[in-house]
């Protein structure tokens, strides 16, 4: 990846903050958008905006074609067997909630169990907690080791004949380590248990193949992978989606309606009630095209260079605690500096033009694991450079001087 050329593709990277060039290291929260994405969204609204799957007029047909082409682009990108397996929604959180709603009555009863991991983002934890509470089921937690690795060795004992689902993130938004999702799936499938993968933090960074992972469901967000906000994907194996009852109803998802009853439409439309985010789908397809043109292997290689450099330089700081240290790092590094509050550090860094995140990162159980109230997180995208890591290190030292 020619990072200089890549940076030129992202207009916002020319911004200055407090008179200093923006160093944007909050990509796990959201990434910026390349011109290719912005242009395609603009072209859609300017040239072919219309509702989809409704009209016979030419604009509607053009919009429908564009929308369905986006679905096909996404199918190819994640290696799904069929476009019927790709459903669009608002984002990963939305996708988990939709899946939880759909599985609740179908799959979970009193005394059943759902396995989640200790490192889940709240959006892959709270919906399952609520399903368990409503159905009298039990939430079972797979722990991780202090180095941020999932305790795969404990999974076998957690899987029982009451297990109805394993919900696991591919990469934690805090720990930034790649979970052995394929092994999780293999072990769960050996007990006939389906697996949902939260891939929000992996899809932007890794070449991903749902058939290779063999997971039953998988979700990710557009805005964390260079597309617009408000568009996300829930992938489901066709056999599963055929089986699940839709839980959102309205236009676009029905085949026939009379005043007494309705018949639902075909896949994937029956999971997309109402007017979908067509422009969002367009932006997602544009982002996928952008990534595919660069090549995910090259994206990964560049990001690994930056990640290794950042790990090395951060580890050399005195009094640093890093959460999730080890190989297979991807996306995010979380840490605290001894004697200074994470919020104060982030505040000082902001004045230096450096955007990093402080807080619990919507993963309170991970904070509890390490016994900290909150921490700092630097997270990377394909446009970050080792020079920006130098700026971060200098900024952290400056912050420490200001704050102690």
């Amino acid at each position, binding site marked *: 990846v020619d990072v200089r050329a890549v940076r030129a593709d992202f207009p916002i990277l020319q911004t200055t903050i*407090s008179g200093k060039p923006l160093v944007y290291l909050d990509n796990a929260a959201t990434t910026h958008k390349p011109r290719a994405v912005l242009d395609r969204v603009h072209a859609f609204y300017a040239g072919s905006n219309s509702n989809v799957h409704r009209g016979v007029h030419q604009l509607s047909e053009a919009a429908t074609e564009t929308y369905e082409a986006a679905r096909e682009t996404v199918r190819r990108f994640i290696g799904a067997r069929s476009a019927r397996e790709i459903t669009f929604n608002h984002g990963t959180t939305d996708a988990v909630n939709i899946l939880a709603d759909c599985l609740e009555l179908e799959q979970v009863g009193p005394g059943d169990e759902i396995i989640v991991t200790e490192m889940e983002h709240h959006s892959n934890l709270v919906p399952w907690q609520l399903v368990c509470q409503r159905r009298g089921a039990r939430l079972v937690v797979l722990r991780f080791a202090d180095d941020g690795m999932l305790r795969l060795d404990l999974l076998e004992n957690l899987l029982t004949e009451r297990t109805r689902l394993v919900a696991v993130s591919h990469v934690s938004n805090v720990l930034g380590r790649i979970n052995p999702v394929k092994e999780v799936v293999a072990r769960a499938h050996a007990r006939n248990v389906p697996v949902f993968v939260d891939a929000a933090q992996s899809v932007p960074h890794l070449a991903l193949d749902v058939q290779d992972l063999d997971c039953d469901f998988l979700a990710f967000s557009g805005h964390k992978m260079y597309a617009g906000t408000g568009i996300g994907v829930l992938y489901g194996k066709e056999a599963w989606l055929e089986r699940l009852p839709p839980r959102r109803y309205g236009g676009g998802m029905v085949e026939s309606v009379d005043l007494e009853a309705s018949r639902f439409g075909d896949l994937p439309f029956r999971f997309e009630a109402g007017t979908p985010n067509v422009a969002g789908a367009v932006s997602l397809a544009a982002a996928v095209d952008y990534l595919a043109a660069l090549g995910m292997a090259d994206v990964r290689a560049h990001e690994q260079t930056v990640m290794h450099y950042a790990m090395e330089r951060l580890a050399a700081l005195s009094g640093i605690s890093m959460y999730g240290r080890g190989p297979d790092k991807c996306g995010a590094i979380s840490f605290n500096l001894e004697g*200074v*509050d994470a*919020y104060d550090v982030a*505040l000082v860094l902001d004045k230096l033009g450096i955007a990093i995140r*402080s807080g619990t990162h919507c993963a309170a159980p991970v904070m509890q694991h390490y016994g900290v*109230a909150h921490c700092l997180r630097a997270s990377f995208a394909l446009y970050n450079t080792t020079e920006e890591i130098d700026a971060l290190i200098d900024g952290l030292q400056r912050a420490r001087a*200001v*704050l102690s």
Partner: protein
Amino acid sequence: MTLNDAQNRVIAELPDGADGIAMYEHLAALGRQAGPADDRLRTEAHALPGCQSQVWIRAAVSADKLRFEADSDSLIIRGILVLLLRVLNGHSPADVAQAELYFLDRAGLSRSLSPSRANGLATIVRHLQHLAGALAEQDSARDRSPPA
């Protein structure tokens, strides 16, 4: 000194908000001087929910003079709390509850904070004035109640 005199004095003391880092340095120094409060304040009962960093506040009145104690894990927030307490402590609960705290804006404090921090600051100010209001009400209820 009136409450507004105290506000004006704080405005004069703060570095002018041009460079955010100078402001943070000043606030952190104030926070460091104050030091962490004792553990009796830093409890769940006095924690202010909804703030990004932990904040603890408690209030007491004696002879119609309000006295807050406050603390935060964040040095910068603790520094702001020092200033707020300097302005508010020693005045009647009713005066504190009704005070218009213009010094935060005029000294560039709200501006130099990130929006989420500025929100947090607004939450803290609301909480301080809410506590003051509650104490003022208790006072007037006592005044109205017949002698035992």
